């Protein structure tokens, strides 16, 4: 589907969910109709000194009302500015961008989100009607979106400090709880994704991993956000797939982490 371009969207709601974690619903019919779990949105700052869009994952999709939800962590001055916006304000966005998760042929899904990789798992959990286990790796007991995940299926938790669920990362929680399935969907920090890939290989389970990388254009032109791919990529014919355009979701065996 054609990219709708950079547009101004109305903010329907904006709130803080947890320490440094914010939620924002925006309204744009065309974008919501196109959106798929695993895609992201380029969000632009109002301050002209902050040039580049911030890529933020789609956390929830309401096609009926034409709304998209982003849940993000304030990581710097750009996301801080975005977090100060309020319902009724408008915000410049472009998307949905990237490929999203492949939901075909899944019978028993394992969703693994770590840190700010947790939010995109919500849209995915809602879109998957099959049996599923949702594994969430938080830093500590200051969780976010937990009630909403629990309404979607079985949830297993880990925390870095052990204050809730299994101590360690999402993968430790998987092993502690004997979680299994026939398709893994994951998003989170690279060390966690490396662990997920190793686990998937060891268990013989197919896995889709969503990557994060510093971006500029967000649409595959500037070649800033590449990852190492096993096969030669179709754009440059080297071993560099574009996270923004060819991803952000890749099959585990497709990429080198």
């Amino acid at each position, binding site marked *: 589907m*054609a*990219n709708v*371009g*950079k547009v101004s969207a109305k903010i329907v709601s904006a709130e803080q969910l947890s320490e440094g974690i914010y939620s924002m619903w925006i309204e744009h019919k065309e974008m919501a109709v196109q959106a798929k779990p695993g895609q992201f949105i380029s969000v*632009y700052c109002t301050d*002209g*000194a*902050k*040039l*580049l*869009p911030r890529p933020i994952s789609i956390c929830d999709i309401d096609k009926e009302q034409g709304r998209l939800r982003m849940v993000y962590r304030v990581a710097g001055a*750009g996301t801080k500015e975005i977090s100060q916006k309020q319902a009724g304000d408008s915000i410049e966005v*472009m998307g949905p961008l990237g490929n999203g998760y492949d939901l075909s042929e899944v019978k028993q899904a394992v969703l693994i989100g770590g840190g700010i990789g947790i939010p995109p798992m919500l849209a995915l959990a809602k879109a998957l009607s099959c049996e599923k286990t949702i594994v969430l790796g938080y830093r500590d007991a200051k969780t976010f979106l937990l009630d909403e995940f629990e309404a979607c299926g079985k949830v297993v938790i880990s925390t870095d400090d052990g204050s809730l669920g299994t101590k360690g990362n999402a993968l430790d929680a998987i092993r502690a709880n004997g979680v299994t399935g026939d398709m893994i969907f994951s998003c989170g920090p690279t060390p966690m994704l490396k662990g997920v890939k190793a686990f998937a290989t060891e268990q013989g389970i197919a896995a889709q991993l969503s990557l994060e*990388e*510093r*971006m*500029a*254009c*967000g*649409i*595959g*032109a*500037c*070649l*800033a*956000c*590449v*990852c190492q791919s096993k096969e030669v990529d179709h*754009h*440059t*014919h*080297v*071993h*560099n797939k574009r996270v923004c*355009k060819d991803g952000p979701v890749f099959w585990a065996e497709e990429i080198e982490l």
Partner: protein
Amino acid sequence: MNTKVSLAGIEFKNPVTTASGTFGSGMEYSDLVDLNRLGAVTTKGVANVPWPGNPTPRVAETYGGMLNAIGLQNPGIDVFLERDIPFLKQYDTKIIVNVCGKTTEDYLAVVERLSDAPVDLLEINISCPNVKEGGIAFGQNPKMVEEITKEIKKVAKQPVMMKLSPNVTDITQTAKAAEAGGADALSLINTLTGMKIDINRRKFLLANKTGGMSGPAIKPVALRMVYQTVNAVSIPVVGMGGIATAEDALEFLMAGATMVAIGTANFVNPRATLDVIEGIEDYMRRNQVEDIKELIGCVK
């Protein structure tokens, strides 16, 4: 109202093109920008063989600008001729191909391969390190600039535009060297070498440590260099460096640039090229400017 300009014997429907590396070969932007509207598309640098580019992170934002160290990742001339040129030929716009290389031979190989291609103008990126001369960029040494321009002119079938590096003490020296070597036009500026440190991680933001700075923050420097160059040589100049709006573009035209290129602004506003074209036309209407040539170099 006339917005046509001519440069190196080629007529462009308007003076606006894209800056190399910010627009791919137009494909990724073609959903968002009607390429027929552009004076020309300037493609991302192409080498004789595929280049994988640098490790990531390759970009970092700076105040009013950004740094990039993509490392000229490109598919090489074979894929480029097979895929990118036929794609661009579907549109009614001129094609400027940016050429990069690590040695003089690399550049010549690309230029020769392009000789039969329907390309209007060659832009030579001489900010690449010359591996045979200890890695100093071709564009930082006037002697090397003159030599490589001469060599390229011997084999090129299209007019040749040398893209100058701003990382020099006096840009008029390299500009004059390119002119002496037979260049048909000049484009400037390429990015300014910069750096950024993440104080929390105590590491460089870019895997490459340094990167090329671009964006609105560098515009006054670029404008000054374009003005100096226009007054130092008699060949035409394509001005670039931080141009984001029609006002920016008009400044460069008034300083003497025959054309302008939009680069980093494409990342901020994918329609930046069109907004600049429309803004220039609007300025001409409001100020009863019949021909854009009246504006070029009008500020002395």
